[in-house]
Every structure is written in structure tokens, then in C-alpha cells.
């Protein structure tokens, strides 16, 4: 018997079994209350809820339309300190950022560029801001979802002092129930790292005084694009 088998047999024994059981009947929920949260909200209402709550969690919030997005991104970037930009390798960002780089005289690098690993991480660590496009967003908690891969490393949404996230209104859902259902659709091909992010890093560990900006980004800006 392998160690794994031994270990699991011991658990089974504690449950009064001598053999590993076949799959149990999956748990069925005694009610559907989680699915009912904000069930009747339309996309505008979800966006509204998202925008309002992002203020509560300390994110800077911008609203814009697709054709004004370039300017809004500029606005958000200008609020951050001077320094380089590390961006997810996303078609939208490929379109918007090069011009912005010129205009703001910032170095912009896309995550899939460069190597080796240590150098890329150092760049992201020194960058003034990281920018990415949300795969999904959750209205209830003003949360955005990122998958990590060769185009957008974990570092992009973690290391820079500031982060800017572009959120197409169409990806906003009600709450984590939909967020987890979305992730589950990828269960057979999950990225190694999936992150739900809700605003800037924070702590209340010293005398319960809330401090925004601990190890993760100190400042987070959300840009909701209404017609995307």
C-alpha cells in the first residue's frame, strides 16, 4: 500500500469503512438562494452596483465609452507615479498602449516580451503600474478576475505599486456564484493561477486601523467601458 492509500484508508476507517467508497451521491443544495442574488438586475444595474462598491473598497473608478477609452486610460495612468508600465499581452492593450507610451514618455512592456524569468519579475517589481483586462467582474464585491498565463503573469496584477484594470461592462456578473461557475467551465484546462481581485491590498492588523496598500498594489483603478 502506498502512503496515500494508507492515509486514506485511515480516514475511511475513522468513518467506519474498510474500503474506499465509490463516488458519493453529489450534494444537492437545499435551496437556491445564492443564485438568486441580483438575479433580475440588467447589465446597467450590475455595472452601477460594481461602480458604487468599488468606491467602498478603495479603488479609483472611471467610466468611459470604447472610443474614449484611450483618453481614460491616459487619465488613470497619469494619476500614478512616474515609471514603467507592465501590461498584459492583450489585443486591446496592444492597440491602446504604444501611443500612450509615446505620449507619456513611459517605457511600456508587455508580459510576453523579454526574458529570463528573474528579469521580467524585476521589471514588473520596479514598474510604476501594471495594466490588464478583466476576464470577468463581480458586481456585489467589485471584484475582477484574471487568469495567469504566458500573456499575463501573476506579477502584472501583483508587483507594481499601482494597477489599472479595464472592465468591459459585458463581463460584469452578479456575484461570486457566477464567478465560480465561470471558473468551473475551465475545469479541464485550468490555468495554474486564477485570481479574483477586489481593489487594492489592505490590512487592519495594527489596532484594527485599516491601511490600504500592504504587499500588493497600493492603488487600483478600475475603468468600466460601457459599450464593450
Amino acid at each position: 500500500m502506498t502512503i496515500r492509500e494508507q492515509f486514506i484508508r485511515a480516514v475511511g476507517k475513522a468513518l467506519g469503512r474498510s474500503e474506499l467508497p465509490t463516488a458519493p451521491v453529489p450534494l444537492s443544495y437545499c435551496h437556491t438562494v445564492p443564485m438568486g442574488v441580483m438575479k433580475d438586475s440588467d447589465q446597467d444595474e450590475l455595472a452601477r452596483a460594481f461602480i458604487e462598491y468599488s468606491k467602498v473598497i478603495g479603488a479609483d473608478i472611471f467610466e468611459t465609452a470604447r472610443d474614449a477609452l484611450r483618453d481614460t486610460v491616459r487619465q488613470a495612468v497619469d494619476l500614478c507615479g512616474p515609471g514603467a508600465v507592465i501590461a498584459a499581452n492583450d489585443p486591446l492593450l496592444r492597440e491602446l498602449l504604444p501611443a500612450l507610451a509615446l505620449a507619456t514618455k513611459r517605457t511600456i512592456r508587455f508580459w510576453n516580451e523579454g526574458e529570463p524569468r528573474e528579469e521580467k519579475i524585476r521589471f514588473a517589481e520596479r514598474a510604476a503600474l501594471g495594466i490588464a483586462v478583466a476576464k470577468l467582474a463581480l458586481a456585489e464585491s467589485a471584484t475582477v478576475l484574471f487568469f495567469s498565463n504566458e500573456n499575463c503573469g501573476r506579477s502584472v496584477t501583483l508587483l507594481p505599486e499601482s494597477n489599472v484594470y479595464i472592465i468591459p461592462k459585458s463581463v460584469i456578473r452578479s456575484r461570486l456564484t457566477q464567478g465560480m461557475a465561470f471558473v468551473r467551465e475551465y475545469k479541464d484546462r485550468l490555468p495554474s493561477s486564477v485570481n479574483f481581485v477586489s481593489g487594492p491590498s489592505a490590512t487592519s492588523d495594527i489596532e484594527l486601523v485599516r491601511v490600504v496598500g500592504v504587499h500588493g498594489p497600493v492603488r487600483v483603478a478600475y475603468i468600466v467601458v460601457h459599450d464593450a
Partner: protein
Amino acid sequence: MSIKTSNLNLKQRMEKNLSDLFMRASIAHAQDWINQKREDRYVELGHFEKWRDLAADIRSHVLDNLDYYLDQFAENAQKAGSIVHFALDGREAIRIASEIFQQRHAKKAVKSKSMVTEEIGLNEALEDMAVEIIETDLGEYLLQVDGKDKPSHIVVPALHKNRRRIRDVLAEQKGYKGDDVPENMTRFVRGILREAFLSADIGVTGCNFAVAETGTIALMTNEGNGRFATSIPKTHIVFMGMERIVPTFKELDIMFSMLARSAVGARASVYMSLITGPRTQTESDGPEELHLIIIDNGRSKVLSSPFKNVLRCIRCGSCMLECPAFRHIGGHGYGVLYSGPLGAALVPVLAGYKEHKDVTRICSLCGACNDVCPVKIPLYESIMEHRRIIAEDEKLTSWIQDAAYSLYGKIIGNSMLYQAATKLASLANWAPRFGPLKEWAKAREVPKLPGKRFRDWFAKHKAKEDKA
């Protein structure tokens, strides 16, 4: 086994912690503040009892099928490229961890808070191996720097420290030159730990939940240190209590929704990270190796006991924040890692009645904990049953106590004796204050016994009525 956090006995711990007025004020403030936030979150969410029912069902279902789900989790974690280890106890877990450190030639580790690693004494063991292991949760870091102090609460571990003390410790130990404003001190620690994150060989984390369907580790954090520990170092080691499983992401929604609200009164934590295997070949960050150490350390004993339900615990700490006893003595008063009602319900069966019988005494059986537990653990009933086991099955009470309670039971168990005793009871008004009377009188006046009992009045009353 590092479940014991103090060498003082019960009486000494009570004295010490009751006289720590700062800690008591902090804990009271934390209770009032967080409890209100928690209540607000559940009122706005609605249907709190229904959410609890669901969460309790999910946890019970998993515990009832823990062997199956553990096997499924291990299988899927392995498929995703994780290296899965099983440790029957803390010693075994440390042996496995030590081997990984040696194999990876690791000298420096950054750690994101994990109760189970404290339970097994990981830090001490690694330090014996000349490994530098740095706590990175702000609260845990401050405790580590301050003479390796123990946490006073599982969610807000440094609650008992005031800002002046923190400033002084940072100045002494780390050369901090600023003031005691929390934001400034936090910024300073950010700077120190940044370098640690970037240069550590290994990231160590716990695991809030493990998703069986995909072999995923789910972490709920706020500061970003958990994300750092799982993104930058080349090796990531996860320590996981074996009961921390959910079947699929669908159930993870419920557990995360409850945990954020019950622990800190938030709708979500800042980071909810789902980690499935090490990085892929094409990724530039993330660990090259991901090790999962699944730990029993007494949990199967609890599973086979009448206290199985206590394993539903999701470590939210709301029972501690609701507990009126915890309010006055903090986590340190309990002398064990898991404190408050959770500690009283779990520690005796997890780690032994003989050594831990006293923790069940720190409870007035008010039942407030039962009402807030997000997974409906019968904490009150568990503590009562532990007391019965201690007195009747394990016979760990003193013979004096047994004799006194026997006498008491005999008197109230016999009408004649009881009536005689109560008739004489008013003599106690002149009794010297010793034993229980002395204890009572420490904080209260002793009630004066009237001499005439109710039954004496009733006899007269009935006689009058019968006459009429």
C-alpha cells in the same frame, strides 16, 4: 506538537490576561467593530440561516465522504503537476518539508499565515535547520519580530499589541525611524518584505480550501503576501489540514462567501487565489515545483469521535469574536493555538483530554457562539459533552471536586436531605468566606439568605386558602 502556546497554568493565565487592560480593550473593540460589520454583511446578503444551512450541509457532506474526496483531490492535484505528500502527524509533515528544503537547497522561505503550520511547529523546526522563515502577514510578522510572540486571534493575530509597542519593536529590531502611525509602519514593513519575497527560495502557505474536482488550492488573503509567496519563489509548499476540502468550485462560492463575511465582515477578501499545479512551461512566474502536504495530526481521531462536526470549521474566528469569555482574556488566555469556543470544542479531542481539559472550563455556556458559526457547529453541546467525558469517562477531575459534587448531587437527589439542608442554609449568612463563597465574593456581594424559604410561605398560603 505546538498546540500549547503557554507554559502558565489556567489560574496564572487568567491572572495575566485579565490584568492586560490594553489587550482587553483591543479585543472588546475588535469584537464590537467586526461583529457589527459581520451582522451588516449578513443582513444585506439576506437569508443568513439558509446560507448557514448550505454551508453546514457542504461541510458535513465532505466530512462524511472525506476518504473519497481526499483521494479525488490527490489524484487531480497530481494530474495538474503538484507533488502530493501525506503526513499522519506533525513530525511527518516536518520531515517531508525538511526534505523539500534540502532538495531545493533552500535557505530562505516566506510564509503566508497558516494555522496548521503553527500547530505542527514548522517555524521552530526549520530554524533548527538554519533556514530563515519569515512570516509575511503583517500581524504575524510583527509577532515574529517581537520575540516570536503568539497570536491572540486566528484572523487578527496582533490584536493585543498597541502601536507604540510595534513602533518600538520595529525600531529596535529593524532600524525603523518613523512614527507609530499604522500606515507608516505598514509601508516600512512592505519595503522589508518586498526584498524577502523577491529573494526567497520557497513560499509556504496554508490552504483555506482544496477543490477535489480539479486539485486546486484556494487561498483567501488581503495583503498580497499570499500571492507573493505563491508567485515569485521557485518552490511553493502548501500545508493543508486534511479536512479542508470542497467537492467543486460551486461549493467554494458558498464557503468563500461565508468566510469573508464571518471572519472580517467583508463581502470578499482582496485576493481569492485558485492555484492548480505549478506554472506551465510557457509561464514566466509562478513556482516550478508545487508541493502539497496533507496533514492528519489527530483529525481522523476527531472524525471517528462524536465531535466530527467540529471539523466543519472554516477558521473564520467569529465564535471567538462573539464569545464573552474570549472578550476578557483573548486568545492567550486559553493557552492553546485554537482558542475561544473552537478551542474548547476541538482541542481536547484533537490533542488529548489529559493535557487540555482546562480549556473546557473557559466557557459560561451562553450559546452565543452557536448562533454565529457559519457552518453550524454545535459548539455549546460539544463543550458540554467534553466536560462530561472529563468528569465521568476520563475521570480527570480532582477527588476533592468529585467528592464535593457527589455530596451536592446526593443532597439535591433526596427530598428529605434537601429540605433539611435548605432549612439550615441561612446559617451560611454567617459562614466564613472560604471555598466557593470566597470565590463568588471576589467580584460580588454574597446574597443574604432570607431564612424563610418559599416552601414555608407556600405551606402557610395553602393553609389559608384551604380554610377560605
